């Protein structure tokens, strides 16, 4: 099993931690994992991204330019990474503020109203977790329990009261691509 996933969006949307939690969860499942953030000044002005690779074998390069899965949370990231998805790969995007829709038809595209759903859950910060839920459902990357354990590990103690909310968000994300 090998999954090569890019997460991209504005800084502050939680793209880096999304990738990191996924990597952590996969590690808990004894997989080989690597997580590679974009770094340096190009972060500035808003866009951030990270690559999470999960594999049963040793991972070669943590920096790759084609992905089987792209998760994009804003227009510039959609513009940039739609073309980086390998044929038959999948593209998940948050529908909020997306004007120019993706056009490829050799990949599977999942628009999900994650921002909207996050507002429904009364916490806009769980938007990324909702998207993560969608990913889990679509790719079976890791088990939900692993993600929850990862969250427990990664979140500082003082945020542990948010764990139930995060679980809800994860579930909501899974439902969104169920239909």
């Amino acid at each position: 099993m090998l999954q090569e996933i890019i997460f991209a969006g504005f800084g502050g949307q939680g793209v880096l931690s999304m990738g990191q939690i996924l990597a952590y969860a996969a590690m808990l499942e004894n997989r080989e994992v690597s997580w590679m953030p974009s770094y340096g000044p190009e972060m500035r002005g808003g866009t951030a991204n990270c690559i999470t690779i999960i594999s049963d074998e040793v991972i070669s390069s943590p920096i790759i330019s084609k992905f089987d899965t792209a998760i994009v949370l804003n227009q510039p990231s959609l513009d940039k990474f739609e073309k980086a998805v390998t044929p038959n790969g999948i593209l998940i995007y948050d529908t909020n503020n997306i004007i120019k829709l993706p056009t490829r038809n050799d990949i599977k595209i999942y628009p999900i109203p994650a921002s909207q759903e996050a507002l429904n859950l009364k916490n806009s910060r769980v938007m990324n977790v909702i998207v993560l839920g969608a990913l889990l459902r679509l790719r079976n990357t890791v088990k939900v329990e692993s993600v929850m354990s990862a969250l427990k590990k990664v979140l500082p103690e003082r945020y542990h009261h948010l764990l139930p909310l995060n679980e809800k968000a994860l579930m909501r994300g899974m439902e969104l691509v169920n239909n």
Partner: protein
Amino acid sequence: MVEEEICLEKVYSKPTTLLDVKMHYCPGCGHGVVHKILMEVVEELGIQESTIGVAPVGCSVFAYNYMNIDMQEAAHGRATAVATGIKRVLPDKYVFTYQGDGDLAAIGTGETIHTANRGENILTIFINNAIYGMTTGQMAPTTLLNMVTTTTPFGRKVEANGYPLKITDLIAQLPGAYYVTRQSVHTPNNVRKLKKAIALAFRYQKEKRGYCLIEVVSNCPSNWKMTPIEANKWLEENMLPYYPLGDLKVPPKEEEK
């Protein structure tokens, strides 16, 4: 036969010396304001053809993407050495450096002091945002006491890191420095004052008076982890008491014409 007519006249717009491209600075960052004002002065003095800028590494390393003048990018801390090289071979051009606090007051301390001491006929614009912006938020020599940065997670402490360095005050002591002033861009009026200071410094450069240094107390919303509005407020309440605005060295009266 004389009537009155109301007509909207353009009174302020982006200077033509600033290229019409998106700048990479974070929202609300003082770098953008200073770029604009500096280029306004260059435009108004009509010295675009004879001005050469030097920007070392730091957030403003890409200044050459925005300022429509000849520019050199310099190694970290070496801007005034590079500018000295330029000015010595092109003594009739206007040469300025545009440096951050890490650049000018940490790694570049030696170059800064010696350039000033030699009285090189150049202008240095010194953006003091009390942090290493480019490298995302480490302590700068000008970081205030108790200020939290990524390398002072418990706040800057005298015992470990010493005092915030008022390098501009040191420079003002040197006989080679001719005009030394501290400005800011957090309010419209301060922007106006900065503009005057820059124009004055270029005039002095023309008159070959020596080294001019304009410190701009500025912000770094991203690494201060504040909104731009909060950042400017914090600047006013915390930076300015330690780095008070105003002239530190002005020419003796008789030299002024």
